[in-house]
């Protein structure tokens, strides 16, 4: 008779010996990147903000602590809590077990709105400087982050910007109805008040002249400041009825423009188009339309930005390709569009084919073109050791942000083209690490490791130091100011933010993905209790195999290839424990059910490398 554990042949039957030898290696949870990746939101955040950590602090009403965690990693919690592109939210695990992710971004705002003074928590700035001088060109979020990281280390920093105050596009582009100036000023000033020497209203026209001033390093954070115009028939004749979106927005922000015609066409499908149309509504535009070439679903704008625009009575006409600006007797009358249909080939490549219908005419008093931004470096001499590529972009190292002139670093939109604030901040942190290493005479490639920590959350037999029960609540909606008031004045903030009660409830939706399930194979008696209790079928005890094949025979198929399998060493029965990280709720039930504490819930903290950290 066969021994029971050899009767598992069911699964072995179809496998050749060759396949059996290709088994998944046991997971090395000591590698900081393994658990880092499990914390989906933090991993997706360009600056790797420890999201669940600050969300728990919000739930505990420790708003100032929550704010400081944010401030350390993303520098502008108040700004980002209102305007972030939130790459964390599509990554949020909650969105894989139900409809909507946690409102991570708006929780950040709860921390910012409810914090106490942070004056006594800001880093102290050495009065004795380290003798190194750094120039930052452009005062957007990238440069400000570099300043924030280097000032506490004793660097002397000069910042230059052609605007009258710091903040870059956060000031010139993001409209006040999304980001009140007071919030921006506060967070920009935390940094400038560290003793940064500012030179505003000053255009830098020669990088060479800056380098010649003997700086130890120069950081270029000048963004992607150039807007584009569509060269259509009638463009010239239309004169100043046609505007470049980003130029127009900054003219509004700086109060050079106060009104617009009643009928406005906004061309483009990105977030800039959404800000242009919503601003138009506040400056007198009554019939404001967004017209975009692509299908609605393919538009670049974030879904919530589109929703906000439509909510304000702005229709979006998709599949309309602009053809001509119609001008009669020197006066712009409107525009002609060709209707198209999107066709996708086998590779998913899109082509927009005309439907053959008549051209569509839309009336307009003003046209705003929001069709993209470009970098422009006319002020950087091409003979100072900075290599430019065939797209006329500087060659910049993706890790160190150093250019081919070792003294010159790039970051933010200036480095690799337009992105967003949080990316600019992430670049700023890494550039600061490089500048610090460089100024200390070390290699910029040899970067200190991130800080990590893993601590058990066990308090008692079935008690954890985090709220392990999973709240059922659906995502809470942020209340808005009444629309008639909001549309009257571009300075009125549309979103009111969560109150603290709603903030608590939304915070409770967080699954605490940083509280890791840690498996200790030597303790496991293979009783299956964890397999049985796990609500989302994460755990399987089975024979090892090739990953692709192994993924098909787990308690539930592991089809999300972006999520890792946690595989143990071989257990006494010859099997391995395989945990699919994909939809683990971090509920701790496996650890509660395990009779031998082979599972434990341990909080994993991951802080990205910061300037000033020693190389291990």
């Amino acid at each position: 008779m066969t021994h029971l554990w050899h009767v598992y042949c069911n699964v072995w039957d179809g496998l050749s010996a060759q396949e059996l030898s290709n088994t998944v290696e046991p997971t090395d949870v000591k590698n900081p990147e393994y658990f880092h990746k499990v914390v989906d939101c933090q991993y997706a955040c360009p600056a790797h903000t420890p999201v669940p950590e600050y969300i728990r602090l919000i739930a505990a009403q420790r708003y100032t602590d929550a704010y400081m965690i944010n401030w350390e990693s993303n520098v502008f919690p108040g700004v980002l809590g209102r305007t972030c592109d939130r790459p964390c939210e599509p990554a949020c695990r909650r969105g894989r077990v139900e409809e909507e992710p946690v409102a991570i971004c708006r929780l950040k705002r709860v921390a910012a709105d409810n914090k106490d003074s942070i004056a006594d928590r800001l880093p102290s700035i050495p009065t004795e400087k380290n003798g190194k001088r750094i120039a930052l060109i452009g005062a957007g979020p990238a440069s400000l982050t570099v300043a924030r990281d280097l000032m506490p280390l004793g660097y002397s920093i000069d910042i230059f910007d052609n605007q009258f105050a710091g903040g870059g596009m956060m000031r010139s582009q993001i409209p006040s109805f999304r980001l009140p100036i007071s919030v921006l000023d506060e967070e920009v000033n935390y940094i400038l008040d560290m003793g940064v020497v500012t030179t505003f209203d000053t255009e830098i026209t020669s990088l060479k002249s800056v380098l010649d001033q003997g700086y130890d390093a120069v950081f270029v954070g000048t963004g992607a400041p150039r807007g584009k115009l569509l060269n259509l028939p009638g463009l010239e004749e239309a004169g100043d009825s046609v505007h470049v979106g980003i130029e127009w927005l900054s003219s509004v922000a700086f109060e050079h423009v106060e009104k617009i015609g009643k009928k406005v066409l906004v061309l483009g499908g990105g977030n800039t188009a959404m800000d242009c149309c919503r601003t138009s509504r506040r400056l007198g535009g009554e019939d404001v339309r967004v017209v975009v070439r692509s299908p609605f679903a393919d538009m670049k704008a974030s879904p919530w930005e589109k929703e906000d625009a439509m909510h304000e009575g702005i229709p979006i006409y998709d599949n309309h390709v602009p053809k001509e600006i119609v001008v009669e007797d020197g006066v712009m009358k409107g525009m002609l569009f060709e209707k198209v249909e999107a066709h996708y080939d086998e590779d998913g490549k899109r082509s927009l084919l005309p439907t053959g219908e008549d051209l569509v005419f839309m009336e307009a008093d003003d046209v705003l073109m929001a069709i993209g931004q470009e970098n422009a470096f006319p002020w950087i001499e091409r003979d100072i050791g900075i290599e430019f590529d065939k797209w006329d972009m500087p060659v910049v190292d993706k890790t160190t942000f150093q250019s081919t002139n070792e003294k010159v670093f790039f970051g933010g939109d200036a480095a690799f083209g337009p992105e967003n604030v949080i990316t600019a901040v992430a670049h700023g942190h890494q550039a600061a690490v490089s500048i610090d290493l460089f100024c200390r005479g070390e290699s910029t490639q040899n970067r200190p490791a991130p800080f990590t920590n893993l601590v058990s959350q066990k308090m008692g037999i079935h008690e954890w130091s985090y709220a392990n029960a999973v709240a059922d609540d659906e995502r809470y909606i942020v209340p808005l100011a009444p629309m008639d008031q909001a549309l009257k004045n571009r300075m009125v903030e549309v979103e009111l933010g969560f109150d603290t009660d709603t903030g608590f409830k939304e915070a409770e939706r967080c699954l605490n993905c940083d509280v890791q399930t840690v498996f200790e194979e030597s303790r496991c008696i293979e009783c299956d209790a964890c397999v049985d209790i796990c609500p989302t079928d994460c755990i399987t005890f089975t024979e090892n195999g090739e990953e692709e094949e192994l993924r098909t025979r787990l308690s539930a198929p592991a089809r999300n290839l972006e999520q890792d399998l946690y595989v143990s060493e071989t257990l006494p029965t010859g099997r391995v424990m395989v945990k699919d990280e994909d939809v683990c709720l971090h509920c701790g039930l496996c650890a509660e059910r395990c009779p031998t504490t082979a599972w434990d819930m341990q909080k994993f903290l991951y802080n990205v490398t910061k300037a000033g950290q020693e190389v291990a």
Partner: protein
Amino acid sequence: MSYQQPKFRHPSLPVNDLGYTRADYEGAISTLCAGCGHDSISGSIVRACHELSLEPHKIAKLSGIGCSSKSPTYFLGKSHGFNSVHGRMPSVVTGAAMANRDLLYLGVSGDGDTASIGMGQFAHAIRRNLNMVYIVMNNGCYGLTKGQDSATADEGSASKKGDPNPFGAIDLPGLALQLGATFVARSFSGDKEQLVPLIKAAMSHRGFALIDVVSPCVTFNNNSASTKSYEFVREHAEATGTVDFVPMREEITTSYEPGHSQEVTMHDGSVLRLRKMAEDLDPFDRGSAMMALEASRSSGQILTGLIYMDKDSADLHEVLNTSRRPLNTLAEEDLCPGDKVLQNINQSLR
């Protein structure tokens, strides 16, 4: 402390023919000790019922007293349930089954509930070939009352705080075979691959189906001197072969070399495929089954898998020629057919 399971489930949980996921067959969160084998058996029952696409309201789960007998709370939350008195589950099933043959009767018991106080009831349910599945969650002790040796504890086995047991064990499959049981199997809580198809087969069997499931009590009887511990059972279990259960609706596609496998069509049309069966066992021959059990026992092993099955079993309803319709669907004219019918009966007795 978690008092309830989160409501979220794996988004790609398979859906059965009724449109239900496994979650629809779950019960309340278990209050048994962490790691108790009984919970794994509950998990296997959930899996089997889901995969068989059983309608939850067509199942009745009945039990006696014990940790094992508590477990029906933790599975099939949408089915009928009856938690009876210690050792009295079989008579409650008998009554229920006689009244309504349309339900699937799942009795859950413990080794104490069955082999001590309930022994008489157990024996007679078998003798009558009551149409039910009888699962014994066998941990060799009285778990609920803190781990005293039960009548299935092996001689010499010692529980966590106990002395070696001086008495011989009652072997429930052996006893059942002798009493004329028509389906006898043994399994291990820690082996779902084996247990789930056995539960499905037992549910398709017409008549009394016993599955004795060794189910370690982690708290009182999972120590190294116990023969009902996870480790001991893993090391000493041997299987009669592999049982695959193919429900009636599914087409049989794979073919196996003759000799290695054997297929049996159950009365409801589903198919049992026995693979890699031990050469010295004919599971359709009671004598052979008894010999195999004894051979395994005397060599210190625990025989698991399908041990015996009577393919032509006739259950109690057939034997007694009971009403095809549940009694609660019979109206007054069925129950009191009137004077004329009575006259006819009387006539026939003259």
